């Protein structure tokens, strides 16, 4: 009893110390304000050149900011690539801006992410950074050496070996080919690319072996290793997982030196955790930190049981990957929304391949390249041929998502239940004398069933006007999973750029907004995709959806005017099993009790006026989705339906002057006007005249450029709430 009491008191003390540390000591507020425009400081990360933008972390006297500079020419890019280095001092003139906060309900919160790294501002440089004379600290020297090595690897070895090597040896994943990196991520094997305990152990063992062979005393070698670890941590980019591994290594060496202390591995990892969190509480919110600690402790806790239950290496590997997936589920699902069962097999394929073959080979190749470069070339060729087929398999499953469960963003209650369920299942699995592998699969399947059932039971429906920038995309989810309807997909009009300006992974609205939001809402198929007309800002995103999410039916007007690219896209959709249906005035599309009436087009006109116009009743309101309908089309509409009365109007053509005529408004008398429009768009949408016309009729205007995505929730015949993605 006494020890229980003292344990409790210790917990209270540690909790109080950490709480105070978090509240008063390490809490940082920004000292900068937008008034500051001239800065002096050091670059503290490797400058990343992506197309015509260079960005890096920059330490001013007060705090760290992210600097962005838009390059003017290719020659400037080359000059800066030569001159910008981590560790050097520069003078920068520019404007401070707050990082973007999300404009869709589930989009990545870049501002929050940076805040957790104690970064509060983005500095948009007006001129290229001006170098200042400065002296380098030892840490900066190591950083510069690292940068040089990464640059060297990039220039020496072929793709994708260069990216892999700089990830595996120097912890820099930014040179991996984009799709490959995404494939590693979605299929749950990205952990292989992170420098972690394995690397530290491998390296320590190597150094230890060499030093002992050279005849050094064991104690001296230990000291040497203790010094070596921090250098290695800086050399590999000092990510959370490396720091964890390094600190653990140092503790192990430390207590081997002292000899008096006995710690279990769980004690060790707990101490390292406390040390890291005490140093910086914001670590707790960083995904790398969370994943690293969760996975490692899960492995430590299950090692004994796995050893008892599985005999072969591959079997142990499978168990381990399942347990790691379970342990990190509560972190991964809220940000990726999906789980792929392929990931178990990918782990079984890639973990042995990478750890036993590719990692030693790449270290060898890298070392050999200093001594005899032709041999290193042969080795790198060998590596790329080794990885060719595994990578093909990986990419196949990335592009063809089989065996994938979409959970969507789980509610906190569900997440809590999930964690509890996972823990109980792990305990039961451990308790069972027999293998009981099914116990480990229960959480995945049970939770998925819960997600599906809760959607089926929920009598709440939603209409979401997504913020796709300049473009249209409306997502309608009917109650009880009766149907998912997507009207248009947004799209960024592509324009030709010079090769040097091309971004490595440009923003794609179909993938990064529409598909992301669909997945976050737990949608695993689109029942009906309506393409109102063929303008790129309405259908540009379709190609990012096809193949990634099943589309049951695609609806276009008979006068849909496809370009050759569109025809290709439609054909591809057709091959994927999508039915293509044409509708015109007078047609009705039914989803159980919900009816969508097509009011236009009746005849062939110009492209915008060929827009499909839909009228429906949701949550007791009459909705009109107009696409890009212009005055001409509106007139025809009011002629055909003179008694049309509407509550919510999706304003035609993003609020252009040529739409939403006074006459039209007088007939339909909307109460709300939704304008889907991009911030600072070059067309000047929405037009002031249109806004005046609407406000003079006391129509409430909601704009996606101001409010972000807009979500109307309804239940039966009632609108229950309207949310905006941008906090007001």
């Amino acid at each position: 009893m006494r020890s229980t009491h003292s344990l409790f008191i210790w917990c209270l003390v540690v909790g109080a110390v950490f709480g105070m540390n978090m509240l008063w000591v390490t809490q940082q507020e920004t000292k900068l304000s937008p008034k500051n425009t001239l800065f002096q400081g050091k670059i503290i990360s490797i400058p990343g050149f992506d197309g015509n933008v260079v960005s890096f972390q920059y330490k001013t006297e007060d705090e760290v900011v992210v600097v962005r500079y838009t390059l003017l020419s290719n020659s400037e890019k080359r000059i800066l690539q030569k001159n910008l280095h981590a560790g050097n001092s520069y003078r920068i003139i520019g404007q401070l801006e707050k990082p973007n906060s999300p404009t869709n309900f589930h989009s990545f919160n870049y501002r929050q992410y940076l805040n957790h790294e104690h970064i509060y501002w983005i500095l948009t440089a007006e001129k290229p950074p001006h170098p200042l004379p400065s002296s380098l600290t030892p840490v900066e020297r190591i950083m510069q050496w690292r940068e040089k090595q990464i640059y060297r690897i990039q220039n020496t070895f072929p793709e994708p070996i260069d990216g892999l090597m700089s990830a595996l040896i120097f912890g820099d994943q930014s040179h991996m080919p984009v799709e490959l990196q995404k494939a590693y991520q979605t299929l749950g094997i990205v952990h292989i690319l992170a420098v972690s305990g394995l690397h530290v152990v491998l390296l320590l063992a190597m150094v230890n072996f060499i030093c002992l062979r050279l005849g050094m005393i064991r104690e001296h070698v230990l000291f040497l290793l203790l010094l070596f670890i921090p250098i290695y941590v800086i050399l590999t980019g000092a990510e959370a997982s490396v720091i964890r591994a390094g600190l653990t290594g140092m503790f192990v060496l430390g207590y081997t030196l002292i000899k008096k202390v006995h710690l279990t591995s769980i004690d060790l990892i707990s101490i390292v955790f406390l040390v890291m969190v005490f140093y910086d509480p914001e670590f707790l919110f960083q995904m790398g930190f969370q994943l690293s600690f969760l996975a490692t402790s899960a492995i430590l806790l299950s090692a004994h049981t796995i050893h008892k239950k599985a005999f072969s290496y591959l079997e142990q590997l499978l168990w381990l990957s399942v347990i790691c997936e379970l342990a990190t589920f509560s972190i991964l699902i809220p940000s990726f929304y999906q789980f792929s069962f392929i990931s178990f097999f990918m782990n079984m394929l890639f973990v042995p391949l990478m750890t036993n073959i590719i990692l030693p080979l790449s270290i060898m190749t890298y070392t050999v390249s200093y001594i005899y470069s032709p041999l290193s070339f042969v080795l790198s060729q060998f590596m790329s041929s080794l990885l060719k087929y595994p990578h093909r398999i990986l990419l196949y499953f990335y592009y063809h998502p089989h065996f994938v469960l979409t959970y969507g963003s789980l509610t906190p209650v569900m997440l809590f239940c999930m964690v509890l369920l996972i823990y109980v299942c792990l305990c039961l699995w451990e308790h069972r004398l027999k293998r009981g592998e099914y116990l480990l699969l229960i959480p995945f399947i049970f939770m998925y069933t819960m997600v599906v059932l809760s959607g089926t039971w929920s009598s709440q429906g939603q209409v979401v006007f997504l913020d796709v920038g300049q473009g249209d995309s409306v997502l309608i989810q009917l109650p009880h999973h009766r149907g998912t309807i997507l009207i248009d997909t947004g799209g960024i009009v592509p324009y030709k750029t010079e090769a040097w300006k091309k971004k490595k992974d440009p923003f794609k609205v179909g993938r990064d907004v529409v598909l992301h939001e669909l997945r976050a809402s737990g949608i695993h198929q689109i029942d009906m995709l309506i393409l109102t007309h063929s303008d790129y800002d309405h259908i540009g995103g379709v190609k990012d959806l096809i193949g990634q999410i099943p589309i049951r039916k695609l609806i276009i007007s008979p006068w849909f005017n496809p370009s050759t690219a569109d025809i290709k896209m439609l054909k591809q959709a057709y091959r994927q099993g999508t039915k293509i249906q044409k509708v015109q005035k007078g047609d009705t599309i039914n989803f159980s009790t919900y009816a969508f009436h097509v009011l236009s087009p009746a005849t062939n006109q110009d492209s915008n006026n060929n827009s499909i116009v839909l009228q429906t009743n949701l949550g007791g309101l009459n909705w009109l989705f107009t696409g890009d309908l212009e005055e001409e089309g509106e007139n025809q509409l009011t002629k055909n339906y003179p008694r049309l009365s509407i509550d919510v109007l999706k304003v035609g053509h993003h609020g252009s002057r040529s739409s939403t005529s006074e006459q039209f408004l007088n007939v339909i008398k909307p109460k709300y006007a939704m304008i889907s429009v991009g911030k600072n768009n070059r067309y000047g949408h929405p037009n002031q005249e249109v806004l005046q016309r609407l406000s003079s009729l006391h129509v409430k205007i909601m704009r996606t450029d101001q409010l972000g995505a807009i979500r109307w929730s309804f239940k039966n015949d009632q609108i229950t709430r309207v949310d905006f993605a941008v906090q007001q």
Partner: protein
Amino acid sequence: MSLCLWCQSIYAHPLDFRHLFSVSNQVGYCPQCLVKLEQIPAHQSCRLCGRDLTKLDAIYIKDGTCLDCKKWEEGPSHGLLEKNYALYSYNDFMKEIMSAFKFRGDVLLAEGFKPIVQMLYKRVIKESSLTWFEKARYLFFYQMGWQFKEYPYVIVPLPLSQKRLKERGYNQSVVLAELLQQRIIPAIRRSEDGGKQSKKGRAERLNTIQNPFRLDSDYTDAIYGQCVLLIDDIYTTGTTLRLAAAALKVAKPKHVISLTLCHG
């Protein structure tokens, strides 16, 4: 981190998911010592005396019981002791532990068996003739460390004679019974008789005629109609336990089973 009760070496049991949130201040044996103990596999033990059947030749086994038990069942004391549960085979290592525990006063050695004895007690409840609901309730209460209002078993440790108790200072059966953390009923008394059971040979033990045990009349009500669980350190021939069971018979228990640390 703890010290092994037997060899005094520092050891740590690997932490697992089940014990992640539990405060572990248990004392126990290190893995090296635990390996030397031979645990009797539950599904390969004699139905009646709990002996490890894997260590017995097939000719001595009949219908899942050993021939010794067959003999008991055919004899006059048939049905006195319904079943015995035993944890470990009485091998050389166990002999050393038992002699330290019983004769050299190292009482703490018993504490190391606490988790496994409690696990065995749970097995006893699971295999009892209670309804599933009662079993679940008892097991749940036991797991939570709550006391029952009524108990599934009346726990009766085998007594020592007054003289021996004075010599030794403790009764090893009571120490073992206390590991269960249940109410203990000292319903049996032992008269001052001659000689330790452990100093006698097999024939001598089997031929004990006069029963050294008698029922303490204060506890007649506590025994009446109840299931009794006798606790002893070791089951050798089964005579002692049967004598104790015979002494209890006066109070008309529902049935009598026993739990011992070792068998052999």
